[in-house]
């Protein structure tokens, strides 16, 4: 009787929330139709157009939904403005690698785009979910899809990158499953609510195992080595997606699991994340200083950016849930939005050079060939360094400001020193672009497909600098993270 009533309740809630499922169902139908269209010999640009339209329509559908705190089942799915924000961010990260990816698609483009749509469905489900089983399954859907995307080109470099990504990723999966079993031992539930107040040894083991499992995808310091090789070896658009989409997804899941599920254990979370964040930032910035390969330099810089991102978790662990925590989470949300444009745009800028592995000296003289593109790439790099008049400055400013508000000024000092170090290697690239002679004449690939995304994301970067008024809105969304904890 009890089970029966709970099933009917769940079904009732599910039909009530059915409007929120339409984007997911729509994306799934489009993906299958596209796979079916693959038997006809259709041009790859048509597939790209279909995918772009479908993803854009699903984003509009999500933006038009009312989003007034609908819960399905026992926190299985939760639709509010916080989850919607991350869903839209993840959609954007897929949206603008669709057309740049055309260049690398030699055969069977429908499989690439269908896989991309299936990955997007997994991302959206895990953005909306507050249940560890559903988060795990949808996260694995994303991982499996990205293994395929990484090895898509089937050249030696792609296969090596995909193999490294696959083996580290599956080890991460095993750690996650083990951590989930310990989470259940400690709490007796898989849904993310603050039911456990005290910390126990099983909880600590679960904390460490889940951190290792999801940290592999976020590529923070001890778990970062695969990321450098995988970003270097894959197609440029795929490495843009790996370093934006899956990274922001892992960040969002870490926020949910550690700030909501481990609400009784904030002290350990603070210690762990401070150590990991300081090591990621410092190590990655120092390693990037001596890099000559541009893609590896960007990969190291994305490890450092992950270090900045998890400062949010450390800060909330230090201050506890309150106004400062909301400001920090809002800063993290804004940082994620800016990060997608600056990191994705600079990885897509690698398409400008017609080489398999792009070294720093390959972009020399780009300003002479195409001043606008060089300026756009420079703006993206300055955004990564956090220099004013780019969105990166605003994001870093709010992050460090929230650190100081939470009385963690020493951590803010470390982070600012690290940004200062990072300026050196970004400016080395900018210097090569503007003040060095090109090594050879015809290795630049200045078509519209390679230029447009760089210029577009640079324009958005400058626009995001003036989005100060977005912060109060994000502040209003941030308490939605703790919606399952019963009105704290």
């Amino acid at each position, binding site marked *: 009787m009890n089970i029966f009533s709970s099933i009917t309740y769940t079904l009732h809630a599910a039909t009530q929330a059915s409007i929120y499922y339409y984007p997911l169902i729509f994306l799934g139908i489009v993906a299958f139709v596209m796979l079916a269209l693959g038997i006809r010999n259709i041009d790859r640009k048509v597939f790209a157009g279909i995918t772009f339209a479908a993803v854009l329509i699903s984003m509009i559908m999500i933006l038009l939904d009312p989003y007034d705190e609908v819960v399905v089942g026992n926190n299985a799915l939760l639709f509010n403005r916080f989850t919607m924000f991350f869903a839209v961010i993840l959609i954007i990260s897929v949206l603008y690698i669709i057309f740049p990816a055309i260049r690398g698609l030699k055969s069977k483009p429908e499989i690439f785009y269908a896989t991309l749509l299936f990955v997007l469905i997994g991302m959206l489900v895990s953005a909306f979910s507050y249940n560890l089983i559903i988060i795990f399954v949808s996260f*694995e859907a994303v991982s499996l899809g990205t293994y395929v995307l990484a090895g898509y080109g089937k050249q030696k*470099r792609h296969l090596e990158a995909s193999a490294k990504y696959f083996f580290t990723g599956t080890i991460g999966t095993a750690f996650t499953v083990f951590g989930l079993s310990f989470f*259940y031992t400690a709490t007796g539930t898989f849904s993310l609510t603050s039911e456990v107040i005290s910390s126990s040894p099983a909880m600590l083991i679960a904390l460490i195992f889940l951190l290792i499992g999801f940290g592999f995808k976020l590529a923070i310091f001890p778990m970062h080595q695969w990321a450098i090789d995988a970003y270097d070896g894959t197609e440029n658009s795929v490495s843009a997606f790996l370093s934006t989409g899956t990274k922001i997804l892992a960040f969002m899941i870490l926020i949910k699991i550690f700030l909501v599920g481990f609400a009784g254990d904030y002290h350990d979370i603070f210690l762990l994340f401070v150590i990991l964040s300081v090591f990621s930032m410092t190590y990655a910035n120092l390693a990037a200083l001596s890099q000559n390969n541009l893609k590896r330099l960007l990969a190291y810089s994305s490890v450092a950016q992950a270090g900045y991102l998890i400062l949010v978790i450390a800060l909330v662990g230090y201050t506890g849930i309150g106004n400062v925590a909301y400001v920090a989470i809002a800063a993290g949300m804004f940082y994620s939005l800016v990060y997608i444009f600056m990191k994705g745009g600079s990885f897509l800028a690698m398409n400008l050079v017609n080489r398999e592995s792009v070294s720093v000296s390959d972009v020399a003289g780009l300003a002479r060939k195409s001043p606008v593109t060089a300026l756009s790439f420079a703006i993206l790099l300055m955004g990564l360094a956090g220099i004013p008049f780019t969105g990166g400055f605003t994001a870093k400013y709010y992050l460090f400001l929230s650190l100081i508000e939470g009385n963690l000024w020493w951590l803010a000092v470390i982070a600012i020193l690290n940004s200062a170090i990072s300026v050196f290697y970004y400016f080395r690239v900018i210097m090569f672009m503007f003040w060095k002679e090109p090594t050879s004449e015809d290795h630049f690939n200045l078509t519209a497909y390679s230029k447009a995304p760089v210029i577009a994301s640079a324009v958005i970067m400058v626009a995001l600098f003036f989005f100060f008024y977005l912060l109060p809105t994000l502040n209003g969304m941030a308490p939605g993270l703790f919606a399952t904890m019963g009105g704290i």
Partner: protein
Amino acid sequence: MDLFIVTSISMILFAIGLYGIMTSNIGIKMLISIEILINAAMLNLVAVAINFSSVDPLILALFVIAIAAAESVIGISLLTAIYRKYGKVSLSLLREIRW
């Protein structure tokens, strides 16, 4: 059975799997080691389910079985593609990406 004993056994299995991954360079061996890792975690899940007399961990275990199967499919197809390029499935051959 006591939860502690089963958890210890699954920990030992997990350690064996990790050892297998760290010491081997052959792709198939690594896939088998990963299966051991995931099965160790699943053993623990089943023990927790019996201990709590709850069905939730068993549901997760079913999903993990499906995901592990999908993972081995992708792994084996990846190793097949590597075999076509290199003639071996030894991962130490993968040396294209250098700095």
